């Protein structure tokens, strides 16, 4: 009995922005499932629609059409089961690393001791032991993103939403972070929705890849990736898949 259950269902989502001089369609009729426990990657070129789509999935933004179901019920606003790793600037510069990771727990009124214990666990997990009292400006780009990941984990979500978390990092730090994220995820499995514009990253991390088109964002294809992890980025199947997805991607010059 290995029936796949859906954690979330995204149904015919569309988003149109209205301005004084007309309107702009960012997302058009996007549907996909998020299966329980899977690492789902949303891959899209350029800058169109991805973050908006993710904000809708996370309940931060309202769609103009369609529905998002969480465990079968329609979502309305943010949901404490869903946590997010943001693209940039999303650490509180006035809080220490520890205080940043504790944010969700503080809001919920968790007692200090317990808060510290949980946060410390995730700080250790992402390899930031010893930096608890540092401020974000004292950290490198890779370390800042680890704080963001620990913060999301500490909130103990069922679904982790990640918005191009490694987009600002150099290629090597990016590889390092991908490996670490995978290790963290394997130790403490959650359903992950990971957005990226990097095909290699998508193939390295994803159980399935939802490929979006350029503006307006639509689902072009959904690729299951049946390679064991960790994956060899220079392996033949990996490179073939990369070429296939690449040829199906819009060039967003």
């Amino acid at each position: 009995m290995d029936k796949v259950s859906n954690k979330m269902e995204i149904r015919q989502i569309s988003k149109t922005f209205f301005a004084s001089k007309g309107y702009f369609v960012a997302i058009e009729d996007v549907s996909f499932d998020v299966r329980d426990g899977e690492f789902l990657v949303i891959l899209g070129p350029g800058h169109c629609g991805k973050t908006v789509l993710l904000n809708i999935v996370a309940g931060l933004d309202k769609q103009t059409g369609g529905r998002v179901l969480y465990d079968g019920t329609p979502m309305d606003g943010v949901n404490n089961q869903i946590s997010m790793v943001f693209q940039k600037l999303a650490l509180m510069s006035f809080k220490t690393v520890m205080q940043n990771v504790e944010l969700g727990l503080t809001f919920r009124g968790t007692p200090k001791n317990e808060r510290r214990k949980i946060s410390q666990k995730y700080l250790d997990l992402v390899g930031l032991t010893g930096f608890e009292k540092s401020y974000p400006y004292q950290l490198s780009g890779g370390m800042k993103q680890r704080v963001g990941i620990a913060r999301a984990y500490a909130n103990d979500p069922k679904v982790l939403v990640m918005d191009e978390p490694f987009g600002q990092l150099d290629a090597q730090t990016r590889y390092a972070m991908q490996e670490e994220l995978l290790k963290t995820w394997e130790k403490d499995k959650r359903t992950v929705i990971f957005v990226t514009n990097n095909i290699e990253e998508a193939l390295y991390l994803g159980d399935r890849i939802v490929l979006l088109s350029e503006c307006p964002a639509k689902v072009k294809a959904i690729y299951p990736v049946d390679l064991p992890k960790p994956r060899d980025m220079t392996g033949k199947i990996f490179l073939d898949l990369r070429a296939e997805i690449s040829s199906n991607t819009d060039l967003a010059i």
Partner: protein
Amino acid sequence: MMRHAETEAAVADEKNGRPVKISVRNLTKRFGDLLVLDDLTFNIHANEFVCVVGPTGCGKTTFLNCLTRIYEPTSGDLLIDNASADPQKHNISFVFQEPSAFPWLTVEENLAYGLKIKRVAKGEIERRVNQILDLMGLQQFRKSYPGELSVSIEQRVIIGRSFAMRPDLLLMDEPYGQMDVKVRFYLEDEVIRLWKELGSTIVFITHNIEEAVYLAERVIILSNKPACIKEELVLDLPRPRNIAGSEFIQYRKYITDKIKWW
């Protein structure tokens, strides 16, 4: 007074008849007690495309800043055509990771800007600007302002501007760092096309090994800090290169092993 090139690559190149254009001699940079660059010595030949790779934080930025003379090296020198590099006399162009077109100038004015400063004749400026626009397929944007363009097009304008200068040395610091794979491949092909058409001497710094193997005639591999030259590798793969080819992947793996820290 040509010094003799040490590397195998250089010897091969001299046979090909490409003279040494840039010569970096015992380049060393210290900040206080901290040694960042440790005695770097290498040559670059005229029209050569060299990629410099190294582990994150190895001092690539310092290296670049010494080449551009933003930092004065602690010791050692940079020679261009056998004379100590001098911004007054030599023409070094840079492309940085963040596009930096002048927002108040149109694309064609941006392309012409450096040439005007160098007092290139008006007809020649026009010819070169047109040539660049044609080579890059940017004619339709010639009257646009950078703010109206995407980041990747703005970056291409900067690259075009640098090529238009016909620099003695063109330094590129990870210009495609944040672009997605598809765009990156497109732009990499474009930079190769420009280099072949216009013949420039290029030092291209990158964190991305695949990019280095795709672009370079020769790769200089830097060690961890303090950076010294770990190895120089001549890549004699035919172009256009097949990123899935076995030789390509061997090079990629080999260089990755040399610098891997993650």
